[in-house]
């Protein structure tokens, strides 16, 4: 009985996460195509944001590493 319960529980947890992942995949699919027109300005801005993000990640990682040391 209790074993059965446990199975159900873990199944439930699995199902819960599966459901969430499905939801996330669904969202990804829904917004797959970016609707904004890719003008040069948009392209450049997005490129800049990517580089900026990488820069910040590098800085944070560096800080973390120095902290840990």
């Amino acid at each position, binding site marked *: 009985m209790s074993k059965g319960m446990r199975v159900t529980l873990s199944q439930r947890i699995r199902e819960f996460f599966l459901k969430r992942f499905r939801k996330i995949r669904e969202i990804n699919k829904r917004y797959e195509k970016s609707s904004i027109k890719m003008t040069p300005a948009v392209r450049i801005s997005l490129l800049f944001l990517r580089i900026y993000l990488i820069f910040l990640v590098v800085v944070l990682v560096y*800080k973390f590493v120095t902290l840990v040391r």
Partner: protein
Amino acid sequence: MNSFARIYYNYRRIAKTIILFLIISGPGVIVMLADNDAGGITTYAATGAKYGYGLIWFLVLLLPVAYYVQEMTVRLGAVTKRGHAEAIFSAFGPFWGWFSLLDLALTDWLTLVTEFIGMTAALSIFHVPPIMTIIVVAVVMLLMVLQGRYWTWEKIALVFAALNLIYIPGAFIIHPSISNILHQGAIPHFPGGLNNDIFFFLMANIGTTIAPWMIFFQQSAVVDKGLQEKDIAWEKVDTFMGSVFTIMVATFIIVVTGTVLRGVQIESAAQAAIKLMGINKYLGTFLAVGLFDAGFLGAICISLASSWAIGEVFGWAHSLNYKIREAPWFYGAYLLAILTAGSVVLIPGAPLVLITLFVQVIAVTLLPAALVFLILLLNNEETMGKYKNTRWQNTITTMIVVVIIILSTLYAVSALFPSLFK
């Protein structure tokens, strides 16, 4: 037309303007005054204590900055009828969407923690134990949203926003010299020269004036209020009034601490309030009450900003006009944010100072993206039509965004590596 008729005509026009403004106003005033959150109050108090009236001019410069950024969210929300998170997903795809959403959730949660720190600190001046503060605040915040109407929520929030103006009479208690304020504060200059210290303070003030959650919050609030294209003009006025209020409050806090606590090192607003308590009981009380109110106002807005954003993206019912049963996930996220953030403050030995510091850094990771997306979205003629940015708006907002990105990045870096600029 005789002069009586003329006077009456103008009186009715003004009265009508005010009434219409009061009906439409809300998101703008709330977001701007919530911007003076616990962290903001601390920043202003510290600025005043360190430089006296010397940096008031800089705050006045921040007024158009806040206005122009937030004004864009009004148009975006009223025209597209959807929040900022959803707009980013839709326009720029899942990568930027998830990045913005997760970053927002994290920033908001951390900021929420700082609000709780502010509130508990403020009320502990009146010997209220932190746990009491947090429970009462959580209950009030829940009651505010559970009544199931955006309208009611907004009116309550406006009351708390109005309470934020308590600093204005507070400043008059101490009879500051107006001519001194004008002489020292009105002319742009850098007291003690442009060094690392003052740079840090300038950037801190910018950081409290423009925060990523404000963009998400106001856009969602505009949508939830159901504002239409025709309301844009009023909502702009609302936003402008809000930015006037927020700068006024900031200025008056600086005047208070600049007059009374000149030269005192201030670590937090609560500490400033305690010090003021010793000088003038009412002044200290005002500052403490104001600090609590600021934290509370910040908390209700920030937690909502996250809930709205998550609700939009996941396609849950996400409006304050829903009852709890109709939008369980929306209210669930709201409650979860409040409870977890509140509990963290209660954990003994939690790294609260680190969190406060971390907030600014995390905010900087999101702010540039949110601002750039805002400008790009506002230039999308397909969705914005005639409400898209004009050339003038593009020029000024681009300038603002570039300056903010540079300064906030420097701020974040200097916060991470204090030795770098020394």
